[in-house]
């Protein structure tokens, strides 16, 4: 075992995935008990593909759409909220259940606490306005701009929607172009069109 000491010693301490899973679960429980679970997340299936849901102790902080890339979303959470990010599904149970109901056309709006970033007032106003667009309906970017008191800031409404940290729950997919076009969507235009159709079909 001359030059192979490293491999031999490593081989003497096999570690199984099951052992690590148990330890990880124990760590998550301890982190929760000690208030160290700054960001809990889980991935749920949906008709749009897998969604990443993340929450702080205050509330839902992110809904990651498939097109956004979950690794990128987690890295962004670590950089902008806290690097204490752990997969811990329990905190996301309520929103996961409500999303299931929404996709099954059994729910029209969401009732979960949100933890939205402190950002420019304009963006906050746009996000607040989104929640008021009813299920099955749409508003145009210029309507939203007028309603938040900046009728000329049509493009800025688009940017605010694109930066919506909790799509679906705050329905930025209901904001469309005045010429009948769908407009952009962080989750892709196909997903946006699909959501509008889902809601129209269920309305």
């Amino acid at each position, binding site marked *: 075992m001359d030059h192979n000491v490293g491999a031999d010693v*490593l081989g003497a301490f096999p570690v199984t995935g099951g052992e690590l899973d148990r330890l990880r679960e124990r760590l998550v429980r301890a982190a929760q008990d000690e208030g160290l679970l700054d960001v809990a997340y889980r991935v749920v299936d949906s008709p749009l593909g897998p969604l990443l849901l993340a929450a702080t102790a205050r509330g839902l902080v992110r809904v990651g759409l498939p097109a956004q890339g979950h690794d990128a979303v987690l890295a962004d959470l670590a950089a902008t909220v806290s690097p204490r990010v*752990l997969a811990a599904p329990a905190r996301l149970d309520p929103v996961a259940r409500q999303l299931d109901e929404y996709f099954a056309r059994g729910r029209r709006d969401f009732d979960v606490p949100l933890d939205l970033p402190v950002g420019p007032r304009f963006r906050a106003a746009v996000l607040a306005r989104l929640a008021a667009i009813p299920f099955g309906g749409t508003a145009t970017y210029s309507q939203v701009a007028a309603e938040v008191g900046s009728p000329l800031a049509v493009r800025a409404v688009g940017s605010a929607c694109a930066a919506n940290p909790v799509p679906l729950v705050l329905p930025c997919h209901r904001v469309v172009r005045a010429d009948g076009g769908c407009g952009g969507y962080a989750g892709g235009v196909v997903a946006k069109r699909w959501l509008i159709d889902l809601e129209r079909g269920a309305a």
Partner: protein
Amino acid sequence: MSLPPFELTVARHAATVLRVCRALVGPDDADDAWSETFLSALRAYPTLPADANLEAWLVTIAHRRCVDLLRARTRRAVPVGTPPERAAPEAAGDLDLRAALAALPDKQRVVVALHYLGGLPYREVAEVVGGSVDAARRAAADGVSALRRRYRREA
């Protein structure tokens, strides 16, 4: 550049830390040592520089938690000396080599574990255990020689 999500840090280094803990405190206390290590790490994580060597940092914490555990075990008046090495029902791997490692003098066992299992370069091993880099390298070489004597592979 910023710190990776802690979940990723756990996924990348969980096995290495568990091996180090098993070598340092034995299989019975290794789970506790692992949990204490990652909980301490999680506590301090946001203050860590983004370019820190996470594996070396975790292995260093693991060593500290293992020392704490061994001290607590001594206070409980449980006879120790070398970590207990038993064949747990699902324990696999090379039992003879594990037993030989467990039988090494403390300093050699710790240095071999930190370097060969924890991946710490000798410079950092020396920082963790104290003493010079050369002393750490010598202790590891002595440990490896002892392992070679006690544990001979069929050629």
